[in-house]
C-alpha cells in the first residue's frame, strides 16, 4: 500500500489511512469495524483540537463546504464519508464518552470532548489563576469571549457549564445568579 500521510491546507497532518478507500466504507466485520471506528475517532478528535472545533453534525458529511471537509472528504481518492456512516461513528464516540449529544435527545449533532469536562475544568481554573480572576464573579460571556484570547475562547456554553459543574463539585467554584444571566466565582481552594 502506497499510502502516505498528507498535510491539509490548514496544516493538519492526515494519517496515511485516510488515503485508503476502504476507510470511507462501513465494514460488516465487527472486528474490522471496531478498528476502523477507532481510527476515525482519533482523526476527528485530533482535527477538532487542531481547528478548535467543538461541534460535529451529521449534516457536515452530507453538505460540502463546512469546517470538516478536509477530514470527511478525500478528493484525491474520490471518497467521502456517508452521513449514515458518520452517525454510527458519532454513536460509538458518545458511547465511549468522547462526545455527548448536544442538545440532548437527538443524534444529529455532538459536542466533541477532545478535552474532557474535567480537563476543561483544570484549564479554566488555571486560566483564572493566571489572569488573577479568582474570587471575582465572572459571567460566562467573560470566560468564553475574553479580551485577550485564551484556551477558553469560543467555548460553547454547555461545555463550559459542565466544566464549572466539575469545579463546583470539588468546591472550587460557586455558581451565582446575576441579573442578566449566570455568573461564577472561582476559588483557589480545593487544590
Amino acid at each position, binding site marked *: 500500500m502506497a499510502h502516505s500521510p498528507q498535510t491539509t491546507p490548514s496544516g493538519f497532518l492526515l*494519517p496515511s489511512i485516510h488515503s485508503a478507500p*476502504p476507510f470511507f*466504507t462501513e465494514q460488516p466485520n465487527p472486528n474490522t469495524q471496531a*478498528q*476502523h471506528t477507532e481510527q476515525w475517532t482519533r482523526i476527528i478528535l*485530533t482535527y477538532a483540537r487542531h481547528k478548535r472545533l467543538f461541534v460535529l453534525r451529521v449534516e457536515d458529511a452530507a453538505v460540502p463546504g463546512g469546517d470538516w471537509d478536509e477530514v470527511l472528504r478525500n*478528493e484525491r481518492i474520490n471518497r467521502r464519508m*456517508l452521513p449514515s*456512516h458518520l452517525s454510527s461513528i458519532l454513536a460509538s464516540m458518545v458511547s465511549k464518552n468522547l462526545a455527548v449529544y448536544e442538545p440532548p435527545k437527538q443524534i444529529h449533532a455532538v459536542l466533541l470532548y477532545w478535552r474532557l469536562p474535567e480537563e476543561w475544568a483544570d484549564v479554566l481554573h488555571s486560566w483564572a489563576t493566571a489572569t488573577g480572576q479568582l474570587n471575582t464573579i465572572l459571567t460566562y460571556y467573560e470566560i468564553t469571549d475574553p479580551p485577550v484570547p485564551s484556551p477558553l475562547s469560543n467555548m460553547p456554553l454547555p461545555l463550559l457549564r459542565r466544566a464549572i459543574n466539575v469545579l463546583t463539585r470539588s468546591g472550587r467554584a460557586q455558581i451565582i445568579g446575576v441579573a442578566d444571566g449566570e455568573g461564577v466565582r472561582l476559588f483557589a481552594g480545593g487544590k
Partner: protein
Amino acid sequence: MALQRYTAAVDGTIPIPALLYGDEELLASQDNVGIYDGLQKAPNHQTGTVHVSTHRLFFIHAQNASSCSFAMDLLHVIRTAHYAGLFKSSPKVTLFLDASTSPDPAAGAQIESDDVFESWECEVCSHRNPPGLSPAAARICALCGVPRSAVPSSRTHQISSSLPSSTTSLSPSVGSSLKLSSSNDPSSGVACPACTFLNYHSLRLCEICSTPLPQVSRIPVISMKSAPSSRSVSPPPDDGDPAKHIIKLSFRKGGDKVFYSVLRRALKAQAWEAWRLILRDNMIGSSSLAVPSPDRGSSPISRPSGIDSILRNVEASAQNTRTDLTDALKDLEALMVKAKGLVQLAGELNEKLTASSTTTPAPAAGSMAVASPFGSTSTIVVSSPTSPMFSTTTLVPSTEPEEAKFIRSSLSQLGLQMSNAPVTLDMIRDERRWIEELARELARILQGSADSYSHQKSVGIMKERGIVGLDEVWGGWNRARGIALIPPSTFLQILPLLPSYTSPPIRSRVFKSGLSVLHTPPYTHAAFASRLAGCLLMSGSQTTSQVAQEENITISLAGEMIEAVEADGEICRDDSAAAIKGGGSGSGTEIRWWNNVFREYVWDGQI
C-alpha cells in the same frame, strides 16, 4: 305354441342390462328355472335364469344362452297364478296370456327393430331422440311429447316395403279373401297417385306428370295396409284351447315367492301402459300396437311433456348422480374401517415380534415354550420335545430375527411403523449400505467413471470445475438416473460420505446465505482465502467480478466466498457508494476488496 307366439328370441350371451330399453329397469332375477309351454315342459328351456323388468320377462338358458333364450313383453300377461309346490313338484308361476295382443310374428318384430335401433328427429321440436327406448316410449318425442307417427307417409311406406316377403308367401294360402279388387285390374291401368291419370300397367312413371307409379306386384300389399282387420283373419284364432295361452315358470330351487311378488308389482305398475295411453290420445288407433286395452282398467298415468319433462329429466339425472356418489363414498368409508383394522393388526404383529425377539436369545430349551408365549413360530418348534433339540435351537435364532426384520421393514415401508418399535441395527445397516452405494454412484457422476470402456465419454460434472452448486449436482444426478429419482433428503444424507469415495476428496460447504456447494480441495475456505490475499497484495484491490473471473466461478459464488473471507477479517471492502463523483447509491455501485488496511495500522497522523 304359446312360447312361439308371444316370445322373441334374444342373444342370452349379452348381459341383461345391455338388453334393456332406455326406460326399462331390471327388477328381479332367479336362476334354476324351467319353462312349461302350455301344460308341457318346453324341451329347450329347462334350466336357466329368469329376469323380470318393468317391461319384459327374460329367460336366459344356462348352457345354450345364445340360441335358447327369449324375451316376452309383459303386456301380453292378463293373469297370473301361483302354485306353491307339493313333494317333488316344484313351485310354479303360471302366466295367462292375452290372445288379442298376440303379435304378428313377422311384422311386429320388424317394426320393433326399426323403432328401437334408430335415432330419430322430432319434426315438431327437432329434438334428436336417442335409440334404445321401449317400443311404446320410442314413438313419442322425449322432449315435446309429440308422437313420432305424426310423420305420415314415409313411415307407412316403410312398413309396406318391409312387408312383401312375408305377405306374398301368405297370400296364396289365404286365397280368395285377398282377391284383388276390380279397380286394380291390370287391364284398366294404374292410377297415378299425383294426377290420377290411368297409366298402362307396365309403365313405371306417369305418362303425364312423370310421378313414379306404384308397382303392379305391390298392389295386394297396398290393399292390406289397414292391417288390424286382416290380421284377425290370417292366423285363425284358436281360443278353444287355453293351454295355447299359458306359460309356466317352474322354480326348481325356490325363490318363487319373491319373484312372484315382484312380477305382480311389475304387472300392476304397467310401465308400458303409460306410453300407450299417450299414444292412443295422440294418434287414434293408427297402429296395431297402440290398440288400447281398456279391460285392464288402469288409472291413466299422465306423462309430462315440454318444459316439465325437461325439468324432470334434469332432476332425475341429478338424483342418479347423488345416489352414485353416496354409493362411492360408502365404499371409501368401508375401506377406512378396514384400514384401521390393518393398522391395529400391524401394531399387534409388531408387539409380538418385539416380545419374541427379546425372549428367543436365551435358548434354554425347556423353558422356551413357557418363556415365549407370543412368538408363535418359536413355540411350535420348541414345544415338541421329541424333535431333535439341537437343530431347532440353532435354527431359531438365525431365522427368526431375519423374518422379524423382514416383516418390520415391510411394515415401515408401508408407513405402519409403530412408535414403540426400535429401529434395529439391521435396518440401519441396510440403509447405510444403500447410502454408501449411492455415494459411490454420485462420485462416479461427479468425477467421471474410472471404467475403461467409458473412458472417452464419461466426463464428470466436476471434471473441469472445482466448485458446483448443490442444486446443479442434484439435478444432473437425477437426470443421469433417469428414473428412480433421489429425494433431496437422501441426497443430503449422502454428502457426508462423499469424501471417502472421491479423490481428490469432494466436500460440501454451506455458505452463510444457505447456498450449498460441492468443492474440491483448491476451493476450501483456507485455500481460497490465502489465494485471495496474495492476489490482493499484488494488485492492491479487486472487484468481485474480477475475482470471479480469476477463479472461473460465478459472480454470486465468488461473492459468497469473499464474504466468508471478509468475516474472518482478512480483507475489507470499499463501497463505491461513498465516492464523491460518479458514485451514488445506484445499482451500478460495486464493491472493491482490499487487504485489511486497519489491522496492524500504526497512527502516522498529527498527534
